[in-house]
């Protein structure tokens, strides 16, 4: 048997008009953790779909060898029978079913055609133990957190006698401690002889856990690095991924901060269903013209809820407090009120809340600002198209034309559309919720430049991010939020990750308990 469990040679995959993979080679050593990195659109997901049989043999050119044998998967079932299991970024679990049922979904444990629940639950419990998931196998999946759901997926893969486990962005939705657990688990699986391929944007994580790293760029293999032998640093990886030196991760910028123009005080929001639960508690912030203000907080701190409740009460119940813009007190009862008042909110979840993926760029760009391209409710279609064309250029959206569907673009380009559609409404204050989530390094840099342009025009930006380095790199001032309270603010000079983390985990007198329930 050869040392390599997997060899892919000359993999080429075409979509009509686009060459997604161009002769990709990749080797994975048995019993290793192999990371696959690259910008969005580099072809990582396509390559893994080919490996896992999503694209059938014959749909692409090139050869796959699994354990020295040529592999010709016609579908996912074929690949799973050969021990290749892929776990997608969006988990494929049925929330209404139990953990055990999910683990054995499609592989039901039966005796003479009847499901044996004892076997199902018993075997599931052993697998769960192996992955460190301490729950009752009969607990419904919807009752456990995303981190644990990820473990269920891995247990499910183990139940299929997995030899090669592919994880697509496994930690994207996890917090730090869950991510750590998961990466530790991958190390354990390696001991047990399971080979892992992990796709990730988090380079620090990749460097910590992977034995080898393959870099893809523009559908081609750039290089494979050995973390032990080669000197690999984050900068080195980034350079390889984007094909250029990124002097700094954040573009240089000299802020020109004007007067404070946007103020929120005493802002309290209750949960829309659990009416007695306070989600945002007497929050107060202000933003000046030309200023980028950060909002840091852990999951569940209430950042998004705070932002959305400001944005025309689009989330929450029993909202109270004051908002003033340029000294005027605002009454924002609906999203359209907020837009008219000059507030924009770019959501953290582009696909579900931010865009119409089935519609083209024109419709996405102009939707919130339709009144700008219409007279008395009648649209000027010519104007719609030319405005979109202009925004496409200004925001550097890489799409062949404005007639392209938003759903066919990469995450970075979709995010640019989201920014574009909000800038088109002519806002004074932009609330950007996780503006660079799930997008690659190169596109992040472009988004940062766009944000700088916005504040240079005298607008204010309130930026929510879970990545502390990003907040430190971009913001002139950062608020920290914990359990619904604003627990403090630090300005650029004094901001450190440690200080922010301290504020973000500060137990407040009343907030902490309520959120724990």
């Amino acid at each position, binding site marked *: 048997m050869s040392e390599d469990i997997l060899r892919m040679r000359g993999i080429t995959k075409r979509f009509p008009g686009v060459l997604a993979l161009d002769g990709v080679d990749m080797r994975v050593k048995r019993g290793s953790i192999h990371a696959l990195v690259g910008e969005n659109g580099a072809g990582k997901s396509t390559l893994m779909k080919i490996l896992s049989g999503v694209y059938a043999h014959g749909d692409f050119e090139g050869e796959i060898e699994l354990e020295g044998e040529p592999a010709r998967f016609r579908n996912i079932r074929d690949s799973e029978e050969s021990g290749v299991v892929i776990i997608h970024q969006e988990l494929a679990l049925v929330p209404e079913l139990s953990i055990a049922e999910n683990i054995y979904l499609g592989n039901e444990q039966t005796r003479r055609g009847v499901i044996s629940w004892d076997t199902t639950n018993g075997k599931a419990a052993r697998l769960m133990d192996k992955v460190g998931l301490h729950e009752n196998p009969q607990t419904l999946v919807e009752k456990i957190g995303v981190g644990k759901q990820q473990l269920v997926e891995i247990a499910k893969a183990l139940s299929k006698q997995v030899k090669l486990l592919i994880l697509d962005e496994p930690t994207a939705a996890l917090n730090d401690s869950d991510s750590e657990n998961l990466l530790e688990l991958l190390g354990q699986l390696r001991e047990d002889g399971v080979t892992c391929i992990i796709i990730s944007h988090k380079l620090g994580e990749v460097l910590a856990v992977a034995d080898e790293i393959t870099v893809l760029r523009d559908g081609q293999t750039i290089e494979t690095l050995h973390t032990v032998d080669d000197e690999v640093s984050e900068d080195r990886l980034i350079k390889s991924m984007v094909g250029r030196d990124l002097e700094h991760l954040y573009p240089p910028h000299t802020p020109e901060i004007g007067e404070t123009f946007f103020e929120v005080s005493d802002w309290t929001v209750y949960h829309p269903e659990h009416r007695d639960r306070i989600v945002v508690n007497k929050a107060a912030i202000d933003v000046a013209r030309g200023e980028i203000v950060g909002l840091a907080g852990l999951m569940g701190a209430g950042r998004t809820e705070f932002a959305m409740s400001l944005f025309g*009460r689009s989330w929450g119940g029993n909202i109270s407090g004051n908002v003033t813009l340029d000294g005027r007190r605002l009454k924002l009862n609906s999203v359209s009120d907020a*837009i008219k008042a000059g507030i924009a909110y770019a959501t953290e979840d582009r696909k579900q809340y931010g865009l119409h993926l089935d519609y083209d760029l024109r419709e996405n760009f102009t*939707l919130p600002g339709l009144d700008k391209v219409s007279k008395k409710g009648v649209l000027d279609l010519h104007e719609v198209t030319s405005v979109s064309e202009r925004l496409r250029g200004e925001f550097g959206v890489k799409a062949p*034309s404005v007639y392209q569907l938003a*759903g066919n673009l990469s995450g970075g380009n979709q995010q640019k559309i989201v920014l574009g559609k909000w800038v088109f409404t002519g806002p004074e204050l932009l609330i950007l919720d996780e503006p660079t989530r799930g997008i690659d390094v190169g596109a992040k840099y472009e988004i940062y430049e766009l944000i700088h342009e916005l504040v240079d025009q005298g607008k204010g930006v309130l930026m929510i991010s879970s990545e502390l380095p990003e907040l430190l790199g971009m913001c002139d001032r950062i608020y920290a939020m914990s359990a619904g309270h604003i627990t403090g603010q630090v300005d650029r000079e004094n901001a450190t990750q440690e200080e922010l983390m301290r504020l973000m985990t500060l137990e407040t007198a009343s907030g902490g308990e309520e959120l724990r329930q």
Partner: protein
Amino acid sequence: MTIKTTAERPSLLTAVRNINLRAYGMIIALVSIMVLFQVLDVVMQNQNFITPRNLTNVILQNSYILILAIGMMLVIINGHIDLSVGSVLAFCGAVSAIALSDWGLPWYLAVLVAVGTGALIGVWQGFWIAFVRIPAFIVTLAGMLLFRGLTLKVLGAETVGTSGPYNDLASGYTIAGVDLRMPTLVIGIAGAALYVALAVRSRSRQVKAGIAGSSQAAWLTKVVVLAAVIVAAAFTFYSYKGLPLIGWILLALVLVYTFIANRTVFGRHIYAGGGNEKAAMLSGVKTKHTSFWVFVNMGALAGLAGVIVTARLQAATPDAGNMFELHAIASSFIGGASMTGGVGTIIGAVIGGLVMGVMNQGMRVLGVATDTVQVVLGLVVLAAVFFDVWNKKRASAGPIVGTTPGGSGEAKRKGGGPDGSGPAGDKPKDKEPEPVGAE
């Protein structure tokens, strides 16, 4: 992301390949069905199917379905469904017949009564659907029973006859004493000319701004073919008795509603709300109000269709409009609507209705029994939607780079329930289980 465009020469072949089957497929289907019946008729009965008389009959016999289909298309685009239109139609027709015959109102007021009643019913249903957030399927299922019952009640299980100019709405060929034969030809030719002029103007603006969406050849073909179709249709109707009054009403409805759908903010809001309600809401679209008005509009159109049915039968009957809702829904789906909302065109709904109407008429002329006709129409609905699904698959194999085609878990993820708790109704649920401390 990098798109590597493989070399493309603007050959005729690529032009043909790039034809948007979804947009033109229905027209092609309608024409081929007509040609098929023409051939069958000539072979089996030695007569023509495509005659001015037959085409006029198709319009007359399907006018009310087409009116319903226009409203239904908007309802479906907005992400809902309306099962009640058949009953609403019957009720409005009954009220209008009573207004005409028993109360002695002039015909135009009787029409207004029907449309107003329909709109009020739309207010009722729209309220429950849009603001109380009860699924449209349930509300209109209730409405289907409710208004059928009310129809029986107001009619007392009898028919109420109608007479006079009211009946001309469904089958007349004159308006205010003017015969419509000559105007059909004149307006048809003028309309074609106007269409060409508008198309040229918009094209030249687009080309000047460098934002043309299609190739010159494709555009030219489209304009020439459409203009020819308009003139040919005008001439066909002219050579019988002219376009009947109801044809003019339909034409006006198609133009007005196409304009609303494509060129007004309200229209775009209907699409946006159906395509992704949460994203639309967060873009400032008043999705609830939009849905509400879509149902009011559906009610009003059902009222108008009620007038046409009553006028055609020259009486309001308790079982008028039975199953019409299903025909209207089928028309929309044949015409390219998507079950998930956000997709569809007014002209598509009308063509979908015409496909069913032509098949119905064609088989009847051939002497096919009613039971067989039903079977065939059922298969046609399935085939049309299959074609749509297949075409979508074909299209989605397109340039997808850096996305997750068929993105696995996305569809399975639970959306916010109809609880009106705002677009992020289920968000904290995802977050809660996360441990708060991360030290």
